[in-house]
């Protein structure tokens, strides 16, 4: 083999190795979903407190991921947090009285939105808004409530 050919073979092997490394990083290490992008429809909900919820956090039903948070903004009328969610098309049988609650995975884990399907015959459609929502439980507020309750009890005769 000529010297130029050897150089070319080595460079080819180098590029191939890098591509393998890139695919390992994409599919084994990160949550890359470029090739498996699923069809979604959008629903939204107003929450009085979202705690530490982030964009791209999961939306779950009974612990199973059914979508992702698309965007979080402040609603101009109510000044509550308007959370838009992309729900996978496979889960398009959600009743219109489905409720949403912001939960935390584990004691110190990330926050996600849990959906609780209701009993209505009507189904949620693209662009619908959840009627029933429950804000995130903020640890400081809980401790605050506990402390006021505790101090209230002791002040009673």
């Amino acid at each position, binding site marked *: 083999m000529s010297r130029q050919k050897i150089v070319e073979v080595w460079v080819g092997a*180098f590029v191939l190795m890098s591509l393998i490394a890139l695919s390992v990083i994409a599919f*084994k290490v*990160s949550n890359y979903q470029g090739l498996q992008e699923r069809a979604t429809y959008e629903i939204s909900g107003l929450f009085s407190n979202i705690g530490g919820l982030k964009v791209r956090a999961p939306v779950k039903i009974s612990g199973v991921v059914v979508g992702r948070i698309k965007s979080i903004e402040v609603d101009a009328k109510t000044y509550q947090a308007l959370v838009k969610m992309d729900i996978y098309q496979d889960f398009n049988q959600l009743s219109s009285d489905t409720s949403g609650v912001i939960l935390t995975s584990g004691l110190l884990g990330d926050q996600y939105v849990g959906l609780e399907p209701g009993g209505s015959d009507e189904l949620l459609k693209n662009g619908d808004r959840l009627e029933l929502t429950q804000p995130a439980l903020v640890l400081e507020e809980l401790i605050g409530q506990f402390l006021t309750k505790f101090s209230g009890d002791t002040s009673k005769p």
Partner: protein
Amino acid sequence: MSSTPKTNQVSSGWVNGLAYLGSGFIGFLSSLGRAAIFILSLLPAMPSALWRFELLIKQVYFAGVLSLPIILTAGLFVGMVLTLQGYNVLVDYNSAEAVGAMTALSLLRELGPVVAALLFAGRAGSAMTAEIGLMKSTEQLSALEMMAVDPNKFVFAPRFLATVIALPLLSLLFIAMGILGGYLVGVGWLGVDEGAFWSQMTSHVDWQEDAVNGIIKSIAFAFLVAIIALYQGYDAMPTSEGVSGATTRTVVHASLGVLGLDFILTALMFN
């Protein structure tokens, strides 16, 4: 009367100090200017370097393939050490499984691009400067010009493009090797559950925010290292001391430049 020469001495000391500061600043500015002119003169030569495929491949071989051993070995050990250190802290919080996520995030966001660029500057950048400096001192660059061959097209542009191609690829390999090292130590040695190791990693590492930003960083570092290495060679005094000084400056400037640019990019990307 006797105080006059003393005053003169003091004032000339001040003046000398100011002159020293001024000449240093002018020197810095003029070298920045020369670098800018060099980069601008390089731009028109870029397309032709893409067409001279053989030259480009050869430079990718010198810059990329020959840097593989140091990059792969360093990546493996960096990943192993990260996992070992992370495990010692995380095991106290009963979250030893998160060690995979921690290793992957540190490698993708910071250590992969930065350490690969530092090693590359030391291994390939310095070699490039020395080669070009030597070409200059043996008047090969002038000889090319005499033969109406543009050195920008034949010497500088292929090396520049080769660096921009090779360094991001090397960073990817560094990261992959680091994660392999983390896996070997975490799962193989420390006994972290394998499924949890990978699932924690995929749930914490975001493709867009972590992986793509890391690759963008690496490309930015490649531009910086290539410009510094080529410019130092181009600007070297054509003597043995000049070439050795330029080689040293390449490593120093490129390393500091990479660390400084890393801070700026991190502030832009992850804030």
